[in-house]
C-alpha cells in the first residue's frame, strides 16, 4: 500500500484530462465548434504513440507524431462539415469517433485489433521504482500541460485569438471583415486535435497497454462535462473542470467504501454528470470561471485615451 502512488496516479489522469479539456476549449470555448468526437483524436494519438514507440523511437518523437497524426485527422474530418451547419459537424465528429474505433478493432495488423497493444514506458530504461516511475509521468504530463497552457494563453490573447472568438460569435461577420473563417476553423480543429493527440500519447505511455474498449464516447462526454463545468473560453476553467471531475471520479470509488448506498456511486456518476450539465446550461452556462477579455496591449491604450479626453 502506497497512497502516494494513488495520489500521483490521480495527478497523471488529471493532467491528461486537463489537456483534453484545454483542447476542446480551443475548438468549442474559443471558436465555437462542437466537436463531439474528441475521443477519436485522443485515440488516434494513443495508437500513434503505441505504434511508433514499438519501433523503438524516443518518446518525445512519438508524442510529436501522435499530435501530428491527430491533427491531420482533425483537418480531414472538418473538411466536409465545416462549410455547412454546425450540427453537421457535431454528427460527423461523433460518428467519426465510432468508426475509428471499429477500424482499429477490425484491422488487427495495424495495432493488435481487439488484442490491444502494449506500449513501452518512456522511462523503461531508467531503473525507476514504481513510485519514481509514476513521479516521472506526473512531471512529464504536467510539464506538457503547463507548456500547452502557456501556448494557448498566448495564442488566445493575440489578434489570432480575437479572430477565433469573433468566429464563435458570428462567422459571417468575420468573413465580411476579411478573414476566411473556414481556414481558421480548420486551424482550430487541427490545434485542438493535436493537443488531444498528445494527451492520447501520454495516456498510452502511462497506462502501457491500450485497446479499443478504452475509447468509448463516454470519454468525449466526460471532457464536455469538464469544460462546461469549469467554464468555456477560460483556460483556468478548463483545467479546474478536469481536476474536479477526475476528483469526483476517484472520490466516488472511495466513497463507496465508507458509505452504504443501494447503488454504485461510480456507475451513477454519469447520470449525475448529465443532470449537472443540464442545470449548468440552464442556470449557469458560463460555468465556474467566466471568459476574460483579451489582453493584447491594446486595452492599455484605452485607459490613456479615456483619461486624456
Amino acid at each position, binding site marked *: 500500500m502506497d497512497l502516494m502512488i494513488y495520489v500521483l496516479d490521480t495527478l497523471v489522469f488529471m493532467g491528461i484530462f486537463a489537456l483534453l479539456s484545454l483542447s476542446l476549449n480551443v475548438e468549442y470555448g474559443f471558436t465555437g465548434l462542437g466537436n463531439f468526437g474528441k475521443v477519436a483524436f485522443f485515440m488516434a494519438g494513443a495508437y500513434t504513440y503505441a505504434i511508433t514507440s514499438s519501433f523503438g523511437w524516443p518518446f518525445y518523437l512519438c508524442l510529436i507524431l501522435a499530435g501530428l497524426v491527430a491533427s491531420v485527422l482533425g483537418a480531414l474530418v472538418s473538411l466536409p462539415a465545416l462549410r455547412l451547419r454546425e450540427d453537421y459537424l457535431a454528427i460527423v465528429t461523433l460518428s467519426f469517433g465510432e468508426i475509428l474505433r471499429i477500424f482499429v478493432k477490425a484491422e488487427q495488423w495495424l495495432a493488435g485489433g481487439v488484442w490491444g497493444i502494449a506500449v513501452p514506458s518512456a522511462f523503461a530504461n531508467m531503473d525507476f521504482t514504481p513510485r519514481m516511475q509514476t513521479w516521472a509521468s506526473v512531471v512529464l504530463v504536467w510539464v506538457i500541460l503547463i507548456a500547452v497552457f502557456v*501556448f494557448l494563453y*498566448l*495564442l488566445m490573447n*493575440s*489578434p*489570432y*485569438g*480575437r*479572430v477565433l*472568438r*469573433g468566429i*464563435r*460569435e*458570428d462567422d*459571417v*461577420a*468575420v*468573413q*465580411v*471583415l*476579411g*478573414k*476566411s*473563417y473556414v481556414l481558421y476553423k480548420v*486551424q482550430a480543429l487541427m490545434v485542438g486535435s493535436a493537443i488531444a493527440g498528445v494527451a492520447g500519447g501520454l495516456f498510452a505511455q502511462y497506462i502501457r497497454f491500450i485497446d479499443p474498449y478504452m475509447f468509448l464516447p463516454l470519454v468525449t462526454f466526460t471532457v464536455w462535462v469538464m469544460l462546461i463545468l469549469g467554464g468555456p473560453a477560460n483556460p483556468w476553467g478548463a483545467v479546474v473542470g478536469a481536476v474536479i471531475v477526475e476528483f469526483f471520479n476517484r472520490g466516488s470509488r472511495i466513497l463507496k467504501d465508507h458509505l452504504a448506498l443501494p447503488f454504485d456511486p461510480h456507475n451513477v456518476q454519469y447520470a449525475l454528470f448529465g443532470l449537472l450539465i443540464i442545470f449548468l446550461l440552464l442556470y449557469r452556462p458560463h460555468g465556474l470561471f467566466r*471568459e476574460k*477579455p*483579451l489582453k*493584447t*496591449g*491594446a*486595452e*492599455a*491604450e*484605452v485607459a490613456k*485615451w*479615456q483619461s486624456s*479626453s
Partner: protein
Amino acid sequence: MAILVVNGISKSFGGLQVLNQASLEVAEGTITGLVGPNGSGKTTLLHTIFGLIKPDAGTVSFRNQLITGLKPHQIYEVGLAFSFQLPRLFFQLTVLDNLLLAARNHIGTSFASALFLRRRWRRQETELAQKAMQILELLGLVHLALHPAGELSGGQRKLLEIGRALMADPVMILLDEPAAGVNPVLGRRIYQKLYTLREQGLSFLIIEHKLDILLDFADYIYMMDAGRVVLSGTPKEVIENPVFYATYVGETQNAAFRS
C-alpha cells in the same frame, strides 16, 4: 472614372425574382446613394456585390477587376468594406475588439505570426488601438470601449457596425442604412464624417431610407424598384423626376420622407 461596375445582376429565391438585371456604377471618390421602396432588392444587391449571395447572372467588377464569385473575405482584400443593416457584432467581445477585428493587414491574425512575431503585432496593436479610439470618439463610444458589445443600445450597436467598416481602411465602403436607428443629429454627423472621407478619396455606395440626409450628401442616386434600377441621376435630377414620385406614392407614409 467608375470604381465599381455592377452589370446585369439577377437573382431569384425559390420562384421569387428579387433582382432583375440590376446594373449601376459608382464613380471614384463619390457618395452614391441607392434608394427605393421596401422589398425593391437594394439589400440583396448590396449582399450580392459583397459576395454574401451568389448571383444567378451578371457581373461585378471593382477597379476593372472581376469580383463576382469571390468570397466576402476575398472581396474585402481588394479594398471593399461592408456594413450590415442589422448589426452583426461580436457581442461577447469588447467594443474595442470589435473594431480591432476589422483591421486590415494585421500581422497577428495569422497563426504563426501570432506566436512568433509578438513584438511586431503588439506594436501594430497599439497603433490600431489609437485609430480605433479615434473612430470611437467620432461615434461617441469612447467611454464604452472596454464594455462587451452586447451591452450597447440599439443605436450604439449600429454606430459600432459602421465603425467596423471605417476601421477596415478600405477604398470603398458599402453601407446598408447607416442612419437607420440613430437619432437625426447623429445621423447627420455620421454623414459628415463620411463626407470628409470622400474628400480624402474614398468611395461609398449607401442604401438609405432617410432621404433628407442622403440627398444633402450624395453625389449620385440610383433608385430601384422590383429588382431593377429604374432611375438614376444627381439628387436634383432624381427628385425632379416624376418616376421618383410614382414609385414612392405608396411609400410616402413610410420611411421615405420620415425625418
